């Protein structure tokens, strides 16, 4: 035994139980073992010993073998049966060594020793010291182990607490900093923490929330989310749902709501951590995309979504690529001003201002897009819609076609208006023109039926009657001619002007027609200078050519102001030419083209009479022959009408050819 060990253990005296029915023996042992290292407990019987053993622990037992009621061996057997006491070393005090050897065989487990009587004090002390030392070592080991365990446990707990606090702090700081709503809840779902963002967004205090975030859900989302959340809690699974959350101003925005369980090492759910992420913008983009996807990708409309803050283009559809001539990838690297022909960044910013400021829900813009070289710029109408804080959807449509058709429509409309005006004018002129011969005719017939008032008995001579009838006939001819003109126009309009081609001499036709205008010429005092001697022969429609010539002469007399009229027929190679020159009122240059149109007279007043169809019909007839009619005129100095008629293939003896013309 090392003294150090003795010393080390002095502080705690080892308890020793002495069991002997003879008090003098017990006293003797107490005396022998008297030391501050030992504390002697005495027992007078086996029963008392067992009692002591229940009360406390002992380093060693000294047991007298021979005792009444219960022998030392019986007591030892009982002690060895008990687990707690089985390991306590036992030293028997006996007079017979053989007994002990027998007993030893029965107790393999645990230390058992004996001391022969008469007892020798040194032997006793030595044996007890050994057993006590064993006991102390065992005890110290146990204590050290316990102490070590304690220290370890304390340290761990402290460190864990530190960690937990740090993580909590970090966690809270983070939770406050993120732009999301963050909350934590107990395993039963009762919220014990909301971050600042929650209050900012909802305006709902912890007290008002009463441990739940379900109160700010949109009514339509509530049932679905509640079920999902309860299921998540029941199964300890992640909760995720998209739902609308009410802001403090009562408006709703879409949020992605997530909650994940925090578990202990053993898998116990300690808490829930929830995050609400604003997905309103994405939702709106999604909605718009979904809305536009099918329709707009199919249509040639260009859809471009961009951020007005940095001009980044975040989405383009196929239509945009097709319209601008750039690939989608190229467009995603461009800015709107790269293809806005009429706006630079700042200009476009001004256009977008009402959208960005939220004063307008959308803007409609007609502008031009530059396209990839060498494509020409394209006219577009652009609908701009703001979605979210920094997203603008632009839907551009190529309006080249629309503009063109619009122009065409406007042109058609103007033409229609003009045509209606001209027709109304014509109807007015036509009714006047038709009424004039009718009026004369009526007057003529009245004069035939009604004798003069002053000489009621007067009888008209046959010559007088004939003259009146001839005049009446002329009126019917005039009416016939007017009606014929109207029919010609309707025929030309319907594309049914039919030419009966035959070989005719233009000079002869002109001479013939001039002859018929003799009376007109004499009435208007116009001298007609005619130069049509040489035959000019071509394949023409005689009646129609006569009609044209008559129309020109009528005009020349009508507008010739009574001054000389020159008429020439010439042959110009394959062309037969007729020139009619008057020195009358002339035609203003702006009216020159118009006079060949239907119902038009350069002179707006109806003073000159006529249907205004003559030159129109003339031109249609001439053009049907493949020829041209033109006029050179000077206001106040007269007009020169020139008709060129291609003579055509002379097919002598083959009779009349006919051709259709519009």
């Amino acid at each position, binding site marked *: 035994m090392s003294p150090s060990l003795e010393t080390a253990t002095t502080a705690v005296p080892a308890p020793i139980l002495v069991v002997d029915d003879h008090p003098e023996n017990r006293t003797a042992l107490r005396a022998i073992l008297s030391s501050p290292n030992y504390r002697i407990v005495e027992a007078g019987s086996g029963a008392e010993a067992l009692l002591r053993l229940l009360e406390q622990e002992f380093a060693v037992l000294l047991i007298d073998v021979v005792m009444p009621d219960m022998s030392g061996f019986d007591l030892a057997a009982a002690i060895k049966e008990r687990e707690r006491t089985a390991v306590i070393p036992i030293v028997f005090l006996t007079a017979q060594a053989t007994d002990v050897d027998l007993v030893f065989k029965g107790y393999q487990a645990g230390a058992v020793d004996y001391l022969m009587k008469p007892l020798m004090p040194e032997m006793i002390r030595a044996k007890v010291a050994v057993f006590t030392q064993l006991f102390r070592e065992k005890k110290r080991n146990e204590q050290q182990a316990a102490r070590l365990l304690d220290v370890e446990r304390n340290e761990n707990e402290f460190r864990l607490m530190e960690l937990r606090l740090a993580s909590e702090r970090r966690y809270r700081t983070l939770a406050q900093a993120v732009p999301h709503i963050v909350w934590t809840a107990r395993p039963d779902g009762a919220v014990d923490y909301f971050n600042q963002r929650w209050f900012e967004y909802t305006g709902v205090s912890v007290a008002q929330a009463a441990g739940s975030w379900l109160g700010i859900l949109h009514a339509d989302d509530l049932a679905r989310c509640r079920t999902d959340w309860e299921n998540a809690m029941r199964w300890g699974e992640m909760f995720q749902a998209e739902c609308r959350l009410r802001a403090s101003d009562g408006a709703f925005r879409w949020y992605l709501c997530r909650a994940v369980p925090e578990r202990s090492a053993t898998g116990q759910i300690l808490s829930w951590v929830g995050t609400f992420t604003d997905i309103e913008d994405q939702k709106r983009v999604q909605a718009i995309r979904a809305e536009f996807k099918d329709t707009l990708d199919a249509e040639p409309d260009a859809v471009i979504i961009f951020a007005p803050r940095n001009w980044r283009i975040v989405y383009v559809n196929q239509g945009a690529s097709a319209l601008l001539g750039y690939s989608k990838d190229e467009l995603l690297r461009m800015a709107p001003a790269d293809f806005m022909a009429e706006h630079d960044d700042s200009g476009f910013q001004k256009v977008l201002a009402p959208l960005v400021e939220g004063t307008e829900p959308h803007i409609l813009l007609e502008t031009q897009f530059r396209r990839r070289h060498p494509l020409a710029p394209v006219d577009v109408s652009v609908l701009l819609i703001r979605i979210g804080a920094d997203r603008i959807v632009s839907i551009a449509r190529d309006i080249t076609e629309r503009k063109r058709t619009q122009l065409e429509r406007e042109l058609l409309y103007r033409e229609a208006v003009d045509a209606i005006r001209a027709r109304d004018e014509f109807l007015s002129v036509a009714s006047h023109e038709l009424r004039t*011969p009718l009026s004369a005719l009526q007057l003529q017939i009245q004069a035939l039926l009604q004798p003069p008032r002053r000489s009621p008995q007067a009888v008209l001579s046959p010559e007088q009657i004939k003259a009146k009838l001839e005049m009446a006939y002329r009126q019917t001819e005039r009416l016939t001619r007017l009606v014929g003109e109207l029919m010609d126009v309707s025929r030309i309009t319907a594309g049914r002007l039919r030419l009966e081609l035959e070989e005719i001499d233009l000079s002869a036709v002109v001479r013939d027609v001039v002859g018929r205008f003799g009376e007109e010429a004499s009435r208007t005092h116009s001298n007609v200078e005619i130069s049509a001697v040489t035959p000019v022969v071509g394949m023409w429609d005689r009646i129609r050519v006569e009609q044209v010539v008559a129309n020109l002469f009528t005009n020349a007399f009508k507008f010739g102001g009574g001054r000389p009229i020159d008429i020439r027929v010439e042959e110009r190679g394959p062309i037969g030419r007729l020139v009619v020159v008057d020195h009358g009122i002339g035609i203003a240059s702006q009216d020159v083209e118009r006079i060949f149109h239907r119902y038009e007279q350069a002179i707006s007043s109806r003073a000159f009479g006529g249907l205004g169809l003559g030159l129109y019909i003339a031109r249609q007839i001439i053009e049907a022959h493949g020829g041209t009619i033109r006029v050179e005129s000077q206001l106040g100095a007269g007009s020169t009408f020139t008709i060129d008629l291609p003579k055509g293939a002379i097919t002598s003896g083959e009779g009349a050819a006919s051709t259709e013309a519009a």
Partner: protein
Amino acid sequence: MVASGEGPMAKLILIVEDDLDVARLLGEVLEAEGYDTAIAANGREALDHLQKNNHRPDLILLDMMMPVMDGWKFREEQRKLPALASIPVVTVTADGDARGKAASIQAAGYILKPLSIDTLLDEVERVCGVPTVS
């Protein structure tokens, strides 16, 4: 063109009308009643006629719609000439509001187309009396 009537005492009517047939017919009807007539194809010819001939008409039958110089212009010019301004004018027109138009140029009367011989003679007699100077 001046056609002579029965004698020097016949009243003269100047017919200003661009439609030759109508002018002639009016002349024949009036002459059959005993008036003398003269014809002018438009306002310009009528003015020329008035200025060249000493025989001052008793009435002018004026078509309003004519080339070269229409009825309104003629009436304006006529009223500028003191010797001719007082010759009464009867307008001949197919348009609506013939009475209003006649009044606007201070015409003595008006006749509507289509013409009726009775209306014509009634209006002529009303303005210048019977065909011959009694």
